[in-house]
Each structure stands twice: as structure tokens, then as C-alpha cells.
């Protein structure tokens, strides 16, 4: 075994002792940030800049293209948007779609929860989830149309059915993979408390897998919109009702392209609002506070 040798090469340094280490009022002068940095730190400002830039690109490209039939300018779209807003057609269409969407989304989440719970509980549950997901997730909504019509008839029932199909698999996949990724130790801790079944899932797995679940929810949300808008066309409407998808279809039939884009803009705006108000807030209150994303 080696002898430690003469400690260090500079052992002749003086030793230092501080008697009063508790002193000082721990005042710290922080470096000031430049105004650019201060502004850059504001997420909403950065996002606003991005949005303004995108709108600018849209406007410029629209003008350069100069083809109102195919791609209207941003200003034309915005004015169509406001006129649609004023005469109430856009809000009522958005509300019509939104209602159905929320129902489908909610049911999709519920179904995904059940499937994932089964998958976590047993091996055959896992196989079931995996098989169902790999079979049904790639199927387009039209494939479900006949069954939807038989089971739910025309109207919102069928729309919700199709929405559930588009939401469930994405959320279930993300949730399940999130559950599997939860640290072994945390799972052992939960079991140690005697938690089992639903209590274990709700109190341990869901918070621990929250980032994955949130991603699933975001993807599910987006695909719910996509599917709804497409499905509103396939399923038709009974007179009087009709959501954003129908609004877009109708205006396209009338060749009122700025209105078509106003409808799409509504989808975009709703997406931005949901992301920045709802999902961001959830993230701030959970993931960020818990320090589980870096």
C-alpha cells in the first residue's frame, strides 16, 4: 500500500481562521441586467414577437402571391375574422365545436385512464392496451363511421365517438410510457405506504408521470381539433347546428376564402389560448414547482 507522501506541494502556506463567520447581513449586490435581457426574460414578449413575425410573413407572402382565391393576406383574414366575430357566426360556430370537443376530450381522457390502469395492473392489460393501440390508432375516423352511425346515429354522439378515438390512444400511450418510466424507488415508496390499485395510480403514478401525461393531453387536444373539423364534414349536420368545421366548409363552398381562413385562425387562436393560459398554468403549478423538468 502506498504511503500518502508529503501532503501537497505547497504545504508551507499559512493557515487561516475566521472567528466571526456569522457576521455580515448577507447583503448581496446583484448585477443589473441590460434592458434587452430584462425584456428577453419575459416569455409572453418573446412569444408575441414570434407571433408578430409570423403574421408579418403571412401578410408579405400573401401580398406577393396576390391570389386571394387560394391564400388571402393576413389583413383580409383578420377583417373577415372580426366581421365573423361581430355578426356572431364565428363565436357560435366555435362554441358549437367547443362543446362537442370538450365532451369527446373528457371521455377520451376517461377511457385512456381506464385502459392505462388496466395496463399497469396486469400483463394481459398491457398486452391489451398495446394491441388495441397498434391496431386502432392508425385507423382514420372514416373507418369508424359505420359503427358510429349504428351505435350513436347522426349528430354529436357519433362526433364524440370519433373524437374519443382520436384522443384516447395518444393519451394512453403517453400515460402508459410515463407510468413505466416512474422511478423504481418512488414506486416502492408508494407500495410501502400500502397504496394499491386506483389509490396508487392517483397518488403516486399520475403525479410522478405528470410531464408525460401533459404531453399526451396536449397531443390529444390538438388531434381532437383536427379530427372534429374533418369529422363535422363527413357526418353532416342537422339544420341549425354546425361548428367550425361546418363554417369552414360552408364558406369554402361560397368561395369566401378569407372567411375560411378566419375559421382556421379561430382554431389557431383557441390553440394559442389553451396552450398559454391552461397548459402553461398547469405546468407552472406542477412540473416547474416540483423541479421535475430542467
Amino acid at each position, binding site marked *: 500500500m502506498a504511503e500518502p507522501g508529503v501532503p501537497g506541494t505547497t504545504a508551507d502556506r499559512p493557515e487561516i481562521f475566521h472567528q466571526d463567520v456569522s457576521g455580515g447581513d448577507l447583503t448581496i449586490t446583484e448585477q443589473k441586467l441590460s434592458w434587452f435581457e430584462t425584456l428577453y426574460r419575459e416569455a409572453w414578449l418573446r412569444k408575441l414577437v414570434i407571433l408578430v413575425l409570423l403574421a408579418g410573413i403571412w401578410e408579405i407572402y400573401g401580398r406577393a402571391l396576390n*391570389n386571394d*382565391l387560394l391564400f388571402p393576406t393576413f389583413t383580409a383574414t383578420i377583417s373577415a375574422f372580426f366581421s365573423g366575430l361581430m355578426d356572431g357566426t364565428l363565436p357560435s360556430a366555435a362554441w358549437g365545436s367547443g362543446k362537442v370537443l370538450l365532451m369527446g376530450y373528457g371521455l377520451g381522457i376517461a377511457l385512456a385512464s381506464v385502459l392505462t390502469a388496466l395496463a399497469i395492473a396486469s400483463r394481459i392489460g398491457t398486452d391489451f392496451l398495446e394491441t388495441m393501440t397498434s391496431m386502432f390508432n392508425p385507423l382514420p375516423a372514416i373507418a369508424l*363511421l359505420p359503427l358510429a352511425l349504428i351505435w350513436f346515429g*347522426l349528430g354529436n354522439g357519433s362526433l364524440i365517438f370519433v373524437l374519443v378515438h382520436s384522443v384516447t390512444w395518444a393519451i394512453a400511450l403517453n400515460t402508459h410510457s410515463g407510468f413505466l418510466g416512474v422511478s423504481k424507488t418512488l414506486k416502492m415508496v408508494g407500495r410501502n405506504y400500502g397504496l394499491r390499485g386506483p389509490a396508487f395510480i392517483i397518488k403516486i403514478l399520475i403525479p410522478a408521470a405528470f410531464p408525460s401525461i401533459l404531453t399526451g393531453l396536449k397531443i390529444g387536444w390538438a388531434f381532437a381539433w383536427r379530427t372534429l373539423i374533418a369529422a363535422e364534414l363527413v357526418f*353532416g*349536420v*342537422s339544420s341549425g347546428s354546425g361548428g367550425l368545421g361546418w363554417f369552414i*366548409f360552408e364558406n*369554402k363552398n361560397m368561395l369566401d376564402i378569407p372567411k375560411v381562413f378566419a375559421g382556421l385562425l379561430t382554431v389557431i387562436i383557441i390553440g394559442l389560448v389553451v396552450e398559454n393560459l391552461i397548459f402553461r398554468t398547469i405546468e407552472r403549478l406542477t412540473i416547474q414547482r416540483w423541479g421535475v423538468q430542467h
Partner: protein
Amino acid sequence: ETLRMARQFGIGYLPLTLIEEQGLLEKHAKEAGLDFTTEWLRFTGGSGMNEALLSGNLDIAAGGVGPALTIWARTQANLKVKGIAALESMPLYLVTTDPEVKELKDFTGKHKIALPAVKTSIQAITLQMAAEKYLGEGQHAALDAFTVSMGHPDALLALLGGQSEISAHFGAPPFQNQELKDPRAHKVIDSYDVVGGPHTFNMIWAKSEFVEANPKTVAVLMAALDEAMTFIRENPEEAAKIWMGAEATNLSAAEVIELITDPRVTWSVTPEGIGPYLDYMTRAGLITTDVTDWKELFFPTAFPG
């Protein structure tokens, strides 16, 4: 009890619009001592509507001759879906913006012809028949390679927008008429020429089971249709106004009246010109049937005379 009726978009459904707007069904039902309400469903295509009909969510479907022929042929063994009445006869135009294209044979590989659905839509079948007629026997599929599927509005936008390969559109009113207003556009073929006379464009159909079980309702419907047809023939301006009030449209009143009063358009419940289609489709193997008389496609209601 509710009668569930379907409708699609376009001027071709004008009689149904009038029935709904003027409450003609309810009126005639009352006269006949029947009590039912009507539910109007709107579809964007024939396939969704046929599924609604087959799944029992719809009593009476309305659409083009193409889907009607298909569902009739497919259900001969079981549900026996047949036509109740025609809605009108209207010509379909193949419109192009390429000045070089004067006849069907001028189409080459650089052209794309937009249709609602390649191979299966009535436009695609008409085009095949035209190819057979103008390009010669056995040439019926010659133009198929140039066709692409596109909804009417998208096709119009692509054609007139001029930034895509779409150089022709086999559409339907009012889109074809709007296209022809553009100075760059002109008509290449006309379906009346291909078929050899006027032919039904839209019609309504139902399952035998429904017609047999509800003869009174069907009679009421026929009476309402008849009244609507008469109204259109006699008061086209009024009909145009009602239609514009009920449908979202970007057409002017004059344009609508022009469409309605076009001398080549007949508003009548009696179908016509179905024979050539039936012949061709049977010949081309698109449907299999041993029926020779096209009138068997319809319930007797379609031939009140």
C-alpha cells in the same frame, strides 16, 4: 313521428330547399290528415349519406345519379333501395382554362382534370362515356390517368387560382357556371351531348321497406315536391330569393335566376336519361345487374303520369 330528409349543397337541391322553407311537407301532411315533423340533415357527400340511410338514421336520401345507381345495384338482393323521384335535369360541363384544349383529344399528360371522385363519380363516368364516344371504342379509360379527385370548391379555386396543374374541372352547377364567367375558361364537353339528351342530375331515394310501410308519407312528399316544382317553374324569381335566403351563397340574385331559368334545365320529378348510364356502367362492370329497363330503378312514384 319524424321524417328524416337529407340535402346536400348546391342549386340542384332547390326543390328540397323550397319544401323546407315553405313548410310544404307539413302543409300537405295536414291536408292528408297525417301528423309528422320533418328533420332536415345536411351532408357534404353521397357516401356519408348512404351510410346514414343504411344504418337507419335517414329515411330519404338526396344526391347525384352516381351514388343512387351504385346503392340501387348493391341492394337489389336485400334492402332494395330505389329512387322516389328526380329533382331536376341539368347538364354538367367539363371546363378548361387552357386555350389549346378544344376537344377531348387535346388533353395530354400535362393536363389535370379535377373531378369530385376519380372513377366513381358521375362526372368520372360521364368522362369515360365521352372518351368512348369521341375517342373511339375501347378508349373509355384514356383520360382516367389525367383525372384527380377534388371537391368542387377546391377544384374551382385551383383552376381559377392558376397556380396548380389543374387545367380542367368537370364540376356541377353553380361552380361550372361561375367558372365559365372567367374569360380564360371555356367548355369542352357537355353531359347532355354525351348522354344524347337531357338527363337527371339529382334525385331522392329510399329503402323499399320505408316506401312500402309509409305510402301516405311518400304521397305527401310527392305532393310537396310537385308543388315546389310548379312554384319554381312559375315563380323563378321568388324561388331564387327563397333559396338565397336559406343557403349560404356568394351568387347574385341575377345569377341564381339565370341558373334556375336556364332553358337546358328542367325542374321535374320524372327522371330521364338514366338509361345510357345504366348501360355503360353495366358494360364497364361498375355495377352488376340483369335489369334492362332503367325504370326499374325507381318506385312508381317517380312516374306520376
